[in-house]
């Protein structure tokens, strides 16, 4: 039988994101997945120990005490790689549960007797017809408009006053180039 004749595997192969792929082993990845599983005890009631055990940490015969498993869980949680992987998996997971979330909203909207009927309807309205706020900013320039000729006349008058006081030759404007230098530290 040639390779072409082999039945092709049509099952999707899990593709981890870069953060999940960067974890040291499948056990670590299974730990992250276990944290998001629906079954198991709730948070604060042994959820981490359950996830560690489920991922295959501890003794293979299941004789590891809860204290040992708790220590393993805490060590894993302190690793930066696991934090990044949890964030990445959570984003992927939110897409996975999106259809269920949309079904729940749809159910809440179509059921007039649902206690959160109005809240669900409001949620959808806020996203489809959001409230618009229009702000008009009016900027006015209150500076007095003075013609260049008026300014020139005033300067000429000042120069005349200076000449009358004996200041005849005025120094030309000095063109200089300078650079900002840091102040000297004491």
């Amino acid at each position, binding site marked *: 039988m040639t390779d072409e004749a082999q039945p092709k595997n049509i099952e999707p192969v899990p593709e981890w994101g870069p953060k999940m792929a960067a974890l040291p082993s499948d056990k670590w990845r299974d730990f992250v997945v276990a944290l998001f599983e629906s079954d198991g005890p709730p948070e604060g009631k042994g959820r981490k120990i359950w996830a560690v055990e489920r991922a295959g940490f501890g003794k293979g015969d299941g004789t590891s005490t809860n204290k040992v498993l708790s220590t393993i869980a805490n060590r894993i949680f302190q690793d930066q790689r696991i934090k990044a992987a949890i964030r990445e998996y959570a984003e992927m997971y939110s897409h996975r549960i999106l259809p269920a979330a949309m079904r729940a909203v749809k159910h809440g909207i179509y059921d007039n007797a649902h206690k959160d009927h109005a809240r669900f309807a409001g949620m959808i309205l806020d996203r489809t017809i959001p409230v618009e706020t229009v702000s008009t900013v009016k900027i006015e320039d209150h500076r007095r408009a003075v013609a260049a000729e008026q300014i020139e006349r005033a300067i000429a008058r000042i120069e005349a006053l*200076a000449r009358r006081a004996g200041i005849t030759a005025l120094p030309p404007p000095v063109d200089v180039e300078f650079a900002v230098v840091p102040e000297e530290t004491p």
Partner: protein
Amino acid sequence: MTPDIVSAGHKWSMLCVAYYKRLLQSKLGVDEWLRLLEELNEIPDLHFTPEMLAAIAPMSDVELDAVHEAMTLDGDERCDVSFRVLTSSRVFAIFQRLNPSLR
């Protein structure tokens, strides 16, 4: 100080100092005296030191006339136009010739 290196704001401060010192030489009420002294006290900053303030001489009659000439361009209490005129290199150079303590 070369006029083109000094910022317009500091040129204005220097002119204000000379102007206020000139006003302090005239007959004023105590409240006006106090107001001018407080204005002078507010002027020094990181670059314009109290020593520089002390070194500036009061304005002469000619300088005073020049300032009033520039102020005729202002329409109200704001000094937008006279600020631009008095702190321009061309006019400030005149004040530096008339009052060497502004250099």
